[in-house]
C-alpha cells in the first residue's frame, strides 16, 4: 500500500493535472478551467478518503462522490484510470462517439462514477438522498459532493441545503470550487455569490474556507468535517480557474476552450 502523505498527494495532483490536460488536448476542446481548479480536492478525496475497490465499484458500503459540476468529469476520469477502474487508453476516447467517458459524468457509462450529473444544481439533492439512504442502511460513511461556484446560482442547491440541515446529515461533506469565474465571465460581474460562507452558515452548515490547491489544508478540512456530529459540511475552496494551464489561468473565457495537442504537450512540460 502506498503511503498517502502530502508529498505523495502533491505529486499525484501534478500527475492528474497532466493526464487531464493531455486527454482534453487529444480531443482538442474541453472544460479546461473547471477541470483544472478541482484537481487537488479530487486527488485528496480519491487517494485518501474514498476507499473503494476498482473490482467492486458498486459495493454499497463505500464512500460516495457526487461530482455535481459534471463538466469536471475529465479530471475524475484521469484519477479513475490511474486507479485502474478502467484502461488508461479510455482517456483518449473522451467525448468521442460511443465513449465511456462523456463530457459530463454518467453513472451508467463509467465505472467508479456514483451519480449522473451535468444539469447544474442537481447533484447536492442526490447527495442528500444518498446520505439518507446510507443512514437507513446503517452505512456510516461520508458522502462527498463537489459543486461549482457558478452552479451555486441554481436555486435547487439552496433547497438541498435546507433539507440537509433539517435532516442533520453530518455525513454529507460538500465542497464549492470557488474559482470566481462562471461561463460568461467573472462572477462579480455576472451573478456574485459572496458572502458565500455566511450563506451556508445561515443555512445551518458547518463551513470552512481554505486554499483549494493546498492538499494539506484540504485534508485537514475533510478530517474536521468528518468529526462534525449534527451539521452537514461545506468546505469552500478558493481556487484558480484553469490552474496549471498557464495560458488559460484566470481568464474570463476559460470555461470551455480549444487546445491543440501540441499546445497541451507544451503545457504538460511546464506543469
Amino acid at each position, binding site marked *: 500500500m502506498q503511503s498517502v502523505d502530502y508529498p505523495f498527494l502533491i505529486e499525484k495532483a501534478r500527475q492528474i493535472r497532466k493526464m487531464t490536460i493531455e486527454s482534453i488536448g487529444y480531443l482538442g476542446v474541453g472544460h479546461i478551467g473547471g477541470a483544472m481548479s478541482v484537481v487537488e480536492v479530487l486527488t485528496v478525496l480519491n487517494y485518501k478518503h474514498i476507499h473503494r475497490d476498482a473490482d467492486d465499484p458498486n459495493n454499497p458500503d463505500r464512500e460516495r462522490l457526487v461530482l455535481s459540476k459534471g463538466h469536471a468529469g475529465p479530471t475524475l476520469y484521469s484519477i479513475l484510470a490511474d486507479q485502474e477502474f478502467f484502461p488508461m487508453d479510455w482517456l483518449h476516447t473522451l467525448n468521442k462517439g460511443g465513449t465511456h467517458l462523456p463530457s459530463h459524468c454518467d*453513472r451508467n457509462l463509467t465505472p467508479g462514477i456514483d*451519480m449522473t450529473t451535468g444539469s447544474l444544481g*442537481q447533484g447536492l439533492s442526490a447527495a442528500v*438522498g444518498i446520505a439518507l439512504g446510507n443512514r437507513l442502511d446503517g452505512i456510516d460513511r461520508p458522502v462527498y459532493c463537489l459543486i461549482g461556484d457558478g452552479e451555486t446560482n441554481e436555486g435547487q442547491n439552496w433547497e438541498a441545503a435546507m*433539507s440537509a440541515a433539517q435532516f442533520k446529515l453530518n455525513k454529507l461533506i460538500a465542497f464549492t470550487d470557488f474559482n470566481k469565474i462562471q461561463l460568461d465571465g467573472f462572477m462579480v460581474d455576472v451573478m456574485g455569490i459572496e458572502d458565500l460562507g455566511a450563506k451556508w452558515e445561515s443555512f445551518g452548515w458547518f463551513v470552512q474556507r481554505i486554499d483549494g490547491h493546498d492538499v494539506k489544508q484540504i485534508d485537514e478540512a475533510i478530517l474536521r468535517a468528518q468529526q462534525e456530529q449534527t451539521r452537514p459540511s461545506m468546505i469552500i475552496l478558493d481556487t484558480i480557474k484553469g490552474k496549471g494551464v498557464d495560458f488559460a489561468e484566470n481568464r474570463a473565457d476559460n470555461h470551455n476552450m480549444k487546445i491543440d495537442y501540441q499546445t497541451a504537450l507544451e503545457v504538460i512540460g511546464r506543469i
Partner: protein
Amino acid sequence: MSNYENVEMRAVYTQTLIELAEQNDRIVLLEADLMRATGTQPFMDKFPQRTFNVGVAEANMVGVAAGLSSTGKIPFANTFASFAARRTYDQFFISANYARLNVKLVGSDPGITALYNGGTHMPFEDLGLMRNIPGLTIFEPSDAVSLKKLVKQASEFYGCTYMRLNRRVSPVIYAEDADLQLGKGYVLRDGDDVAIFAIGAVMVNEALAAADVLGMQGISAAVIDMHTLKPLDKELVLSYAQKTKAIVTCENHQVINGLGSAIAEYLSEVQPTLMRRVGVMDEFGEVGDLDYLMKRFGMTAENITQQTLALLKQKEKELV
C-alpha cells in the same frame, strides 16, 4: 358491494404503500409539504424513518429521491401533478430517468380534479411532458381497485414511473379479482361500431355512461380503460381499430400529446383510422367545482356521445 365504495383514492394509495412497505423495507416515501393533501400521514406514522418531507421544494424532492434510489431504495415521491410535471421536469428527466434510476413519481389532482385550486394547479400538460421521457412508464388508475393493483406492479419492477392520482372518492369500476396489468388496456365493455379509449377516473366513468346512451340508440360501443399511457398497448389499439374502424379517445388532459395523440400517432402509421379526441382543446385550466369544469371542458358523457355520433356519421360516409 366493493370494500372500496366511498373510500377516497388517496386513502387506498396510502394503505397500498403501507402494505408494500411492510413487505419491502426498501420502499420509502417523499413529500413536499402536501402530506395533508396527498393523505400519506398514516405512512409516516407507521414508518417515520422512511418518510422524508422536504418542505415546499419539489425539485429537491425528486433529486433526493434519485439519490435514495441510487442506494437501492424504492422512493415514491408525491406532489400535485402540476408541480410533478412542470416544476420537477428536469430533475425527473436527468437525475432520475436519464440516470436510469428507480423513482416512482406521483402527481395528484390531475386535470380538472384540481377543482378549487384553479388554473395554476390544473395540469392539462403533465402526460404530454412525461410522454417525451424515454422509457418512462406512465399510468393513471381509474378507481381504487386498479390503483391498488397498478401501484403494486409499479413497485415491483426497476424503472421510473409517473402515476396520476385522483385523490378523491370515485366510483368503483373493477371487481377485486380483475386481471389488470400495467401496459395492457382493459376492455370494460366490448363493442363493434366504435371503440372508446379512456384514461383516468373522470373519463372512464363518462365513457361508460356514454356507451350506455349510445347503446340505447342501437350503437355498440366498446369501452377500454387505457390506464397505461406508456408503453402504449399497441396490440389492443390495432385490434379495435381493425374491428370498429372508429375510435374515440377521452382524457382529462390536453388533446395535444396525451392519449389521443399517442393512439393517433400509432394508427396513422399502421392503420389510419377515423378518430375523435375528447379532452381539453388547447386551453388553460380555471377554477370551479367538478360539475362545472367537466361541462366547461367537454369532459362529459354527453360530449363523448355527440363526438361519437359525429364520428359514426363520417365513418358511414367514407365507407359508402
